[in-house]
């Protein structure tokens, strides 16, 4: 059961990571990163590490996404526009 859940969570995280890296819309790539972090929270719970899971939820998902969102707000949403 654990193995199956781990596999599913990995699929979720890899999809999130791909969104985070390849999307041109920076807002979506921040969302992608928070998907990866959420997946990691689940993984840490599966791995009997509730402390790490709580930390990742508070810091990785909440604080990390907020920090990046503030960045996106200032730098503009579209990656392409900046690279021209």
């Amino acid at each position, binding site marked *: 059961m654990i193995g199956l859940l781990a596999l599913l969570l990995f699929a979720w995280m890899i999809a999130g990571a791909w969104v985070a890296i390849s999307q041109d819309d920076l807002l979506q790539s921040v969302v992608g990163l928070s998907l990866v972090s959420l997946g990691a929270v689940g993984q840490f719970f599966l791995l009997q*590490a*509730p*402390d*790490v*899971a*709580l*930390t990742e*939820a*508070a*810091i990785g998902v*909440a*604080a990390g996404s*907020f*920090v990046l969102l*503030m960045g996106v*707000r*200032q730098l503009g949403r579209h990656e*392409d526009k900046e690279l021209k």
Partner: protein
Amino acid sequence: MTAVPLRKRVRVKTLLLVLLCGWLFAVHLGLLLQYGLDGQSASMGDALLARNAETASANAVTSVVVSYRGFDTLGEVTVLFLAATGIGLFFGRRDRRDSEVPETAGSPPNEMMVTGVRLLFPVLILLGVYVVVHGHLSPGGGFQGGVIIATAFFLRLLADPDFRLSHTRVGLLESLSGSGFVIMGLLGLSLAGTATFLGNFLPHPVADMGRLLSAGVIPIIYCLVGVKVGAEVAAIFGDMLERGGEHEAAQVKDKPEAE
């Protein structure tokens, strides 16, 4: 990126990068699958776990984080402090008057939200304090609780137009708790009973394990960490938010050295 030659160049570069990453991936995967799957038989973690009862902390991760590897935690808090200081510098406004209205969204927040956040605020603070104080008994502790407290202040800042976050006070809390951490360490060094930096110099009888007042200095240090992390994350959030809404790139250009 519509011109054909450019697109072609990008393609080739991407292909090469993919090949490079794929090759490295295969190498790592092969090595780790071949040699990395069996967990080590006797690790220092197991030895620490076996001795964990000495600290009288029910949460073994907490006793490792705060006591056995408390030096790492001190360093980690320092990195956060550095980052908070740096962000205060680069978003550049923590030295001005405290009474400035935070610049948030253009329209005033609606009444429902203000009331809701005012109600939620004490609950979140309480939850944060609970998580910090019970760090040695249950999952959670200074970092997680500190971030929860910071989030409470941050929500209030976002939604409640009457709410101010005093930067001087946040800075004071930051430096008090940080110095407190180092002083606890130095007390451990100077008292004959422990004589090591960060030693657990308060009595921590094993019989008390599981009670709120147990484990000697561990809960005290974790509370200091909680206050420090809370203050720093709140400062980071506050700094990032307050100038976030303004579009003043031109204005900044005009006065390069604001100090």
